[in-house]
């Protein structure tokens, strides 16, 4: 079957972003450079392969999955159908129109070379939809692709003809591509015989140090050169259609500035590092003198209160291309003192209902909560309490939950040693938890000393949770998340249910296939691309686009990066979901931006960067970073939100009924 991508694109041109067209059409039309322009064969095509952008099963973007062979290389693409056909499902019901063009663009998988794919994990549940997760050599993973009409096996069978595939020894549902461990394959590939797909060493999303052929090369080069400008113009085009929102205009200008910054930053990096190191005060004064060249974000935030040290205009000022490079500047609003008991009393009515939950969340976002008030307020933030519940309702809920907790706890408590002997999974889980709780925050007085009852409580809660959510079980990192919660609640049952509420959102961080982590790292890479293009380019060039160096930050919400009381403060700010559910990602960007000159100036490679980021632990100024992140979040506006695929943790998971944690044919601990 011969069919060109160009033909296919006429179908999609309505919504495909310019870069998609550009790179995809290069695939077939770059006849000037291609060695073999005539061959472009669709070797596999599957309709109704969909991505779920949100937790609603009804909201999905359907498209066509293809493998296209060109010369000696093959490419995988997933192109969504045009918006109109996505607005109705297979039964003709009209669907929620919130699946917007931007979502569709975000998910489009441009022609990705099969040699850039590291592995494919398949999920073939007996009930429910089959899907695959494609992981690139760079470590990035695409969101799950659901095969609505089945056919994952057929897809893999076809793939097998075009790329070297082996089944992972660790996990029968994982297929490794380009894994030339077999010496025969290795020597075959070194001979570069036709039909043998070359292994791309250290390949990343856009470029590879070892391109397989000149076709691949030209496609990649083109996508690299175009991405800088076309992504900006793509956002501009989209934004211009919207109504006049100052924040949008601002975003446009910021984006334009960022595109200018690229060249500048490269040339000036080393020089600036020399000149501006340790001159924080000096820089700050300079900034104060500079008048804002662009409108201030405060326009969209009429409620910004002026404070003693800064004029209103300076609170959130549009970063000028020079300004944003300076590590010492603080952008967001001045932080407020924590919410007090007296203030809290004024926010609830006589029966205990929170009168304005948004107002409360905003108050906490900017100031946090006094420690002795945390026990009560955290339960609202985590979702254990409803904001509009009364004192009486909450008391009732607590008592119900208490007995429920005891019931679940008794399930493992009643397992005798004889029974445990024949229950390996239980023994393994219990063993892991036992080992980990004695290695969790033991330097905090609450958990220190031998035979500490609070350590026992950590153990019991975690083991009970692993029965409450048996599919997810226990994973390292959970004890880090539980520790401050128990410390605040000082009650086993309350801590358990608060932890359960937190895990509703953060559970995917601990999924065995790491999909929750990958989707956040993916979103982070998109955000950095938007908010700091030069840094993004640097990471790409340094083969650091997998963002693994931010792994610990995201997995346990910066728990290891700050002192205990700061962690509690940060968490309550994050849990407000006030500006964004994904504020933690903006914090990542803020921290990276503060050190961007050092990272780029010293040309850090993956190892050096990982070590550097690790050693930032204890060195990050929380208040400053929160303010930076706030400003970045406001600046990024909708473009920022569009970088984060809906359903990315800590958003509620995609489809609660689909059994997200269900592990097919897996050994789960």
């Amino acid at each position, binding site marked *: 079957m011969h069919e060109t991508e160009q033909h296919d694109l006429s179908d999609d041109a309505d919504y495909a972003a310019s870069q998609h067209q550009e790179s995809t059409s290069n695939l077939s039309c770059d006849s000037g450079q291609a060695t073999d322009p005539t061959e472009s064969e669709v070797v596999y095509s599957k309709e109704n392969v969909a991505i779920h952008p949100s937790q609603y099963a009804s909201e999905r973007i359907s498209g066509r999955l293809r493998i296209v062979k060109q010369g000696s290389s093959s490419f995988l693409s997933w192109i969504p159908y045009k918006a109109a056909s996505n607005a109705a499902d297979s039964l003709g019901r009209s669907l929620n129109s919130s699946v917007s063009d931007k979502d569709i663009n975000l998910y489009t998988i441009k022609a990705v070379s099969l040699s850039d794919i590291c592995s494919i994990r398949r999920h073939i549940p007996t009930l429910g939809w089959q899907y695959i997760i494609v992981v690139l050599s760079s*470590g990035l993973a695409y969101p799950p692709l659901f095969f609505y009409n089945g056919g994952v096996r057929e897809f893999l069978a076809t793939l097998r003809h075009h790329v070297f595939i082996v089944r992972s*020894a*660790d996990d029968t549902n994982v297929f490794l591509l380009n*894994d030339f*461990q077999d010496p025969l394959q290795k020597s075959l590939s070194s001979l570069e015989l036709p039909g043998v797909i070359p292994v791309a060493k250290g390949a990343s999303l856009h470029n590879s140090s070892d391109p397989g052929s000149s076709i691949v090369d030209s496609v990649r080069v083109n996508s690299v050169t175009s991405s800088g400008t076309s992504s900006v113009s793509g956002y501009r085009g989209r934004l211009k259609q919207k109504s006049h929102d100052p924040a949008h205009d601002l975003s446009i200008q910021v984006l334009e500035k960022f595109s200018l910054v690229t060249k500048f930053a490269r040339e000036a990096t080393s020089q600036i590092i020399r000149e501006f190191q340790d001159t924080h005060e000096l820089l700050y004064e300079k900034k104060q003198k500079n008048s804002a060249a662009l409108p201030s974000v405060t326009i969209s935030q009429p409620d910004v209160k002026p404070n003693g040290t800064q004029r209103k205009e300076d609170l959130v000022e549009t970063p000028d291309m020079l300004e944003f490079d300076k590590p010492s500047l603080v952008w967001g609003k001045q932080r407020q003192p924590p919410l007090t008991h007296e203030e809290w009393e004024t926010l609830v009515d006589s029966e205990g209902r929170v009168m304005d939950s948004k107002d409360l969340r905003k108050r906490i976002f900017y100031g946090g909560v006094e420690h002795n008030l945390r026990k009560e307020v955290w339960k609202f933030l985590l979702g254990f309490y409803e904001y509009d519940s009364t004192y009486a309702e909450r008391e009732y809920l607590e008592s119900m939950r208490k007995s429920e907790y005891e019931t679940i706890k008794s399930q493992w408590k009643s397992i005798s040693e004889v029974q445990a002997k024949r229950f390996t999974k239980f023994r393994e889980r219990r063993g*892991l938890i036992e*080992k*980990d709780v*004695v*290695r*969790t*925050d*033991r*330097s905090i007085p609450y958990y220190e000393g031998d035979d500490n009852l609070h350590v026992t409580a950590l153990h019991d809660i975690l083991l009970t949770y692993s029965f409450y959510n048996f599919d997810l079980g226990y*994973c*390292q*990192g959970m*004890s*880090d998340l539980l520790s401050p919660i128990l410390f605040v609640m000082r009650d086993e049952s309350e801590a358990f249910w608060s932890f359960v509420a937190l895990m509703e959102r953060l559970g995917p961080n*601990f999924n*065995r296939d*790491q999909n929750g982590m990958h989707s956040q790292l993916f979103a982070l890479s998109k955000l950095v691309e938007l908010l700091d293009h030069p840094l993004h380019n640097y990471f790409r060039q340094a083969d650091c686009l*997998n963002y*693994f160096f931010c*792994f*610990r930050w995201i*997995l*346990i919400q910066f728990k*290891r990066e700050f002192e205990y009381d700061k962690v509690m403060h940060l968490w309550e700010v994050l849990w407000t979901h006030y500006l964004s559910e994904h504020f933690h990602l903006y914090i990542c960007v803020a921290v990276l931006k503060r050190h961007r000159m050092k990272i780029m100036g010293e040309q850090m490679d*993956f*190892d050096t960067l*990982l*070590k550097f980021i*690790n*050693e930032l632990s204890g060195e990050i100024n929380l208040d400053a970073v929160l303010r930076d992140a706030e400003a970045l979040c406001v600046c990024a506006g909708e473009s920022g939100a569009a970088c984060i695929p809906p359903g990315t943790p800590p958003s509620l998971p995609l489809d609660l009924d689909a059994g997200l944690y269900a592990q097919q044919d897996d050994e789960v*601990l």
Partner: protein
Amino acid sequence: MSYAYLFKYIIIGDTGVGKSCLLLQFTDKRFQPVHDLTIGVEFGARMITIDNKPIKLQIWDTAGQESFRSITRSYYRGAAGALLVYDITRRETFNHLASWLEDARQHANANMTIMLIGNKCDLAHRRAVSTEEGQQFAKEHGLIFMEASAKTAQNVEEAFINTAATIYKKIQDGVFDVSNESYGIKVGYGGIPGPAGGRDGSSSQAGGCCS
């Protein structure tokens, strides 16, 4: 501090076998039974001397839990040495060695030197894996082997230093191209390998003093 070479090490093995304790014993010469479990990776470093040359060991201490393997695999890149650790009192940690080894072989460079360590040998009364079994496994897979105790410090120095000596010998034998950093070796300013070694002694000492 200046060095003739920098070697990257990675410590791998099941959770709770004592990877972090071995590192701490080696870098700080102390045993800390109460420490936080490792999430992701932690780093340590120490200078040693081999053949009168200052060598810096940069050690990556990784998280052991199965779930993090996909992340851990990205740390192998460019490691010159690996300490593969099991706990002599827990049989399952020994049983998992093959899968760790497979990971190491697959994701590290082929010339990486691997030292197998049976840790917690101070707990002889709870031993579940015999010394002979450890030796046998090492022999079958071409590893160096030692039993050690992070608690008593027995063989900890030796494990790290013997690994370095093996790597050093490979450099002398020309197994590595030291200018290629993917082997996990960096050449420092304190010494020049090969025939130019004549000026090593004085320059490395001078380098050591001034930093």
